[in-house]
């Protein structure tokens, strides 16, 4: 089973969801882990925007329960709302995952109750990360913030998105923190990314992700398909690893 660990929905319109699934079908992707960053993608979402994101993900998951696995988008700026959404979407709804974007560092203490609840729910957390030569956005996490958070909760399942942009170093940073994985989503399809990652961490800690629809399923999957690995390693990265975490 091929599972894309990093997909966004822009809304819950049928035309949008159908287009996403059609493109996934052409790329041979069985299931998509979807998040919404609300319909405006603002850097610091309001509580209402978190709610809007949750509603779109719930609607999509309810319509296509065999294809979509939902993230609940949370924020340190709205802890009460985030906890409410985790109850509604994860504890009592179809969502299995938690999404952190750029409104706080992953080790921000304000997130402590949210991580505690994620642990109770056995919900894996995906944290956006990047290290940018051009300068990060305000409170945009790097791999160091995720490692710092993961060391506080050794039972937490957490992965950093986009291999933090700096793939030459990412696997070295997370190597000694075994509850941290990473996804391959986003950025240009530079040659040798996955081979470089696997020099420092096992394939079990790498998840295929695309960052569609901003990115292409075919292009982003080629990072994994072009790696010099065994079929077993490839299958793990393309879906078995996240499937193990999700228990689907």
């Amino acid at each position: 089973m091929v599972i894309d660990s990093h997909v966004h929905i822009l809304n819950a319109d049928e035309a949008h969801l159908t287009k996403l699934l059609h493109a996934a079908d052409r790329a041979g992707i069985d299931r998509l882990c979807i998040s919404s960053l609300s319909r405006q993608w603002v850097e610091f979402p309001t509580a209402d925007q978190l709610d809007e994101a949750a509603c779109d993900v719930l609607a999509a998951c309810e319509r296509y329960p065999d294809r979509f696995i939902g993230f609940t988008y949370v924020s340190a700026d709205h802890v009460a709302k985030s906890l409410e959404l985790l109850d509604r979407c994860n504890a009592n709804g179809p969502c299995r995952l938690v999404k952190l974007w750029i409104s706080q560092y992953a080790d921000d203490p304000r997130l402590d109750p949210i991580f505690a609840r994620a642990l109770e729910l056995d919900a894996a957390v995906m944290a956006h990360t990047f290290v940018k030569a051009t300068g990060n956005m305000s409170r945009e996490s790097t791999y160091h913030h995720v490692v710092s958070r993961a060391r506080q909760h050794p039972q937490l399942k957490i992965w950093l998105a986009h291999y933090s942009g700096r793939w030459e170093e990412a696997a070295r940073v997370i190597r000694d923190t075994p509850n941290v994985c990473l996804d391959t989503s986003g950025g240009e399809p530079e040659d040798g990314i996955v081979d470089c990652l696997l020099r420092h961490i096992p394939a079990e800690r790498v998840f295929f992700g695309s960052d569609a629809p901003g990115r292409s399923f075919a292009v982003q999957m080629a990072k994994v398909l072009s790696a010099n690995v065994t079929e077993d390693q490839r299958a793990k990265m393309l879906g078995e690893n996240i499937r193990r975490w999700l228990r689907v």
Partner: protein
Amino acid sequence: MFDINVKLGHWPHRPVRGLDALLRYMASNDVSGAAVSSLSSVNYLNPQDGNDELAKLIVPHRDRLVLLAVIRPDFTGWRDDFMRCVDEYGARGVVLYPNYHRYALADGLVTPLAALAAQHLLPVFIQAGLEDARRQFDRPIMLDVLAPEMGAFAKAHPDTTVVALGLKFGQPESAADPLPDNFYFDTSNYETMGELETAVEKFGPGKILFGTNFPLFTPLANVNKLRMADISSPDSQAIGEINARRLLGTCGG
């Protein structure tokens, strides 16, 4: 298929694969030909040194690999380099790096080069950028050549075929609207969900060329982009091979 955007040579910021890997990728993906330019020439003071190295390297593979000459029109003797590449190396196009070589396409010094290329029926390839700015660590950021500058260049030189390499999704339309008859772009860095379907509808298949940006990108990314695109077989063939061979004046192979 024919890959319009391949480089071979050194890259100072990370290891890159070479000729053997190129030939393996081509053989395993039904890519029968490629237009190859020197990656080393991006950073050599005299890009002709890279052209010379590359020409020697690909001699045994001239049936499959066509040389594109990297020329900087502000470097003394560029005309001699151009002619050597055409006459001795069989070059079928010219590649420009205005950002790396620090000149503007609007500079008058590019005009004689555009005219010479047109006279020899050679396309001029303009590389937008080679690396995501966010990943240019510990050095001055090299900004991309802007699509409107490429569009203006194509309009200013209507007899010269201009191919933009590495444009991103949303950029070709900013080159000019509509695109000039002599303007084309490659697929290498053109990406979003359904990118080729959108491009075919917006620009027509005749404007688009299959290119991988090997060895900086994994070539499979663009192979699969084309293979998985929901476009007609004739459109796919045009993008994958026919357009490139028409522009380069090559056939067979």
